[in-house]
């Protein structure tokens, strides 16, 4: 009896140890390749492009971990491949190579979510086109402290340009100051830190553009009138709140017969967004419109409409990524999804980093690449704008693979 117990105890401990070990080694490998993986991707990409062969050599001597880099997933390579067909071949615009193999680093809000991975793919593509190194690493939870730590490690690596999409602009400001003091060019991308020393903000689409597009698309589906509600995500998320403000303004100005009945906050939780959308439809039986304000609530509200059997009665729009919205756009539970070219945003971030590192002035209508035609720069606010938002419908949603 005691013997069997002892044996099972040993088995248990052994199992735990091996699991923990497997976990640790995998994790190390993972973080290592996350640090160097991006250079690896540009290596493989560059290798496939004979014209850029000289860059490969330069890249591999600075990348200390070229062997782990080799291990870094083939998915990254296929991503870049995929990126080149959606982002299109920039060959037409013939991107101007950087004068040096600059190191351009980006710290996303969160690593491992499709949105930032798509940005990463665009960044890798740009790094290849422009002949620079792209370093991409972010926290595993949307945590400001962890993000600041990663930014500091990039400062220690003496990158040439550091971009951040801050989770908390206020706590990121001192880190950006530290980077600036170390002679690193600093910028923000995707989300701004307005009261910081950042020298540029790469903006995906203007607040007005997104807010207006959301309201216009919703009203188009609802016939310009009726009751609607918004399922937002983080209650303190600055970008979401400013979009909502614009949505309210546009609706008030142009659609007096439309009434916003409620704004609820589901966090970044898809399940909760679906439940809340269901509750809203029950509370307001005459509701005809729902807005999913972020990438987790956009499919959530569409699913709620589908489950309630109200396709065609309740219309939804939202900010959702193409792959997650495709089934809903096709069955009509979602009328339109507003987004921007996420890969293009990553591309533009690298381009902006090169301009900063070179010290060149950015024109009001800069020539970036053949695909990024609508980029504009506002010198007063130091904001580089990607262009008007992208409206995804059932007709064009199949063109995107993220």
């Amino acid at each position, binding site marked *: 009896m005691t013997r069997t117990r002892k044996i099972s*105890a040993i088995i248990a401990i052994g199992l735990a140890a091996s699991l923990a070990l497997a976990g640790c080694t995998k994790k190390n490998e993972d973080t290592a390749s996350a640090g160097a993986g991006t250079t690896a991707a540009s290596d493989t990409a560059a290798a496939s492009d004979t014209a850029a062969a000289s860059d490969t050599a330069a890249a591999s001597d600075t990348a200390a971990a070229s062997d782990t880099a080799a291990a870094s997933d083939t998915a990254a390579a296929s991503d870049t491949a995929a990126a080149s067909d959606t982002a299109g071949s920039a060959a037409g615009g013939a991107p101007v190579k950087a004068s040096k193999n600059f190191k351009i680093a980006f710290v996303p809000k969160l690593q491992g979510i499709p949105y930032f991975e798509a940005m990463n793919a665009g960044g890798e593509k740009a790094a290849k086109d422009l002949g620079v190194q792209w370093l991409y690493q972010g926290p595993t939870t949307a945590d400001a402290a962890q993000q600041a730590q990663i930014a500091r490690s990039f400062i220690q690596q003496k990158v040439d340009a550091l971009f951040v999409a801050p989770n908390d602009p206020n706590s990121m400001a001192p880190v950006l100051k530290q980077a600036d003091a170390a002679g690193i060019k600093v910028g923000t991308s995707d989300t701004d830190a307005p009261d910081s020393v950042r020298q540029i903000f790469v903006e995906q689409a203007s607040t007005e553009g997104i807010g207006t597009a959301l309201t216009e698309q919703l009203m188009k589906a609802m016939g310009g009138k009726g009751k609607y509600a918004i399922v937002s995500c983080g209650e303190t998320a600055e970008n979401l709140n400013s979009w909502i403000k614009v949505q309210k303004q546009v609706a008030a100005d142009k659609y007096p017969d439309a009434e916003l009945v409620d704004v609820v906050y589901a966090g970044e939780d898809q399940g909760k967004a679906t439940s809340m959308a269901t509750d809203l439809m029950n509370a307001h039986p005459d509701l005809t419109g729902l807005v999913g304000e972020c990438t987790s609530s956009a499919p959530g509200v569409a699913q709620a409409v589908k489950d309630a059997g109200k396709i065609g009665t309740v219309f939804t729009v939202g900010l959702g990524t193409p792959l997650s919205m495709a089934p809903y756009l096709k069955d009509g539970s979602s009328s339109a999804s507003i987004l921007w070219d996420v890969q293009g945003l990553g591309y533009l971030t690298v381009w902006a980093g090169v301009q900063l590192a070179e010290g060149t002035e950015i024109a009001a209508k800069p020539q970036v690449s053949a695909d990024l035609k609508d980029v504009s720069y506002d010198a007063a606010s130091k904001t580089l704008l990607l262009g008007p938002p992208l409206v995804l419908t059932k007709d064009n949603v199949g063109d995107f693979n993220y």
Partner: protein
Amino acid sequence: MSSPTTLEDPGADPTAAAPRARGRVLAPPVTGQEVVLIGVIAVVWILLWIFTPAFMTPGSLQPLLVDVAPVALIGIGMTMIIITGGIDISVGGAIMVCAVSTAKMLVSLNFSIWMALLISIVIGGVLGLINGLLIAYGRVHAIIITFGTANLFQFIGLQIFHSSTVNGIPGTLASLGRGVDGRSFGVPHSFLITVVLAAIAWWYLRHTAGGRHFFAIGGDEVAARLAGVRVQRRVLLAYLITGLLIGIASLFYIAKGTSTLDQSVGAGRELAVIAAVVIGGTSIMGGRGSVLGTVLGALLVQTVTSGVTQLGWPSQLSDLFVGLAIIVAVGADLIRQRARRTA
């Protein structure tokens, strides 16, 4: 609030209901806290009915029950764990591993619902077994072990996600979801499964010697051991059962979600489940509790959450109400305990 006040129903009289000798030590089938809970739920439902008439319609109640199902289902296992004096805070991570593995396989292999169920239950069972072995034989407190495994499971889950969402999940599990396919005679299947399993667990914990051992362990582990209870086996069983139930509940989560599964699956579920168990009157110190209470607790939490949205109140208020309910429930438990000690 003490128990003998619940004897309106003659069947509830312990001496009448249980002719066998051990009936004497059994608490009445419905304890004081459960009666209070039923009362609170009834009052809240009636209030919601008055203020938002749409609340009492099938269109509102069916999704509510679908949302209750996974929390209550995992709550059955969690009740057993907490009765033994343990706890499991790795539930969220375990759900993530089960859900993402099953969803990925559904996308690539497109097998039947039964195969999905089998796979999810096996994965859940393995994760539960890991927790159970470490806690029963490792002799470290459950909160430490499951805190460790929570991180481990989360890591495994994220690895399987591989930096992207799972897209294009087929409608194989629609019979467990929120839509028309998900119910028979107006009752959601997922809730029905939960009720059946809860009833079995209720009977097992209450009327079998094996079931009573869980209470003995939570009451006094050393005494239970001396009385011949195989403590480690029972403890292991509690975590294993929880793992198996997580496997089933993960299918509910996939089914009631969208055709896209993202990393938020399972996040924070451990707290929702523990809240349901504690509000249901199970003592967090172990030794006392019931599955019926847990199901009611889950129902109350979801009613409050839905109700707040339907009333158009700010969403944070639901956190406030759930928080208050937990404090009241734990407070009531402590008062009862003190009364018992002085008696």
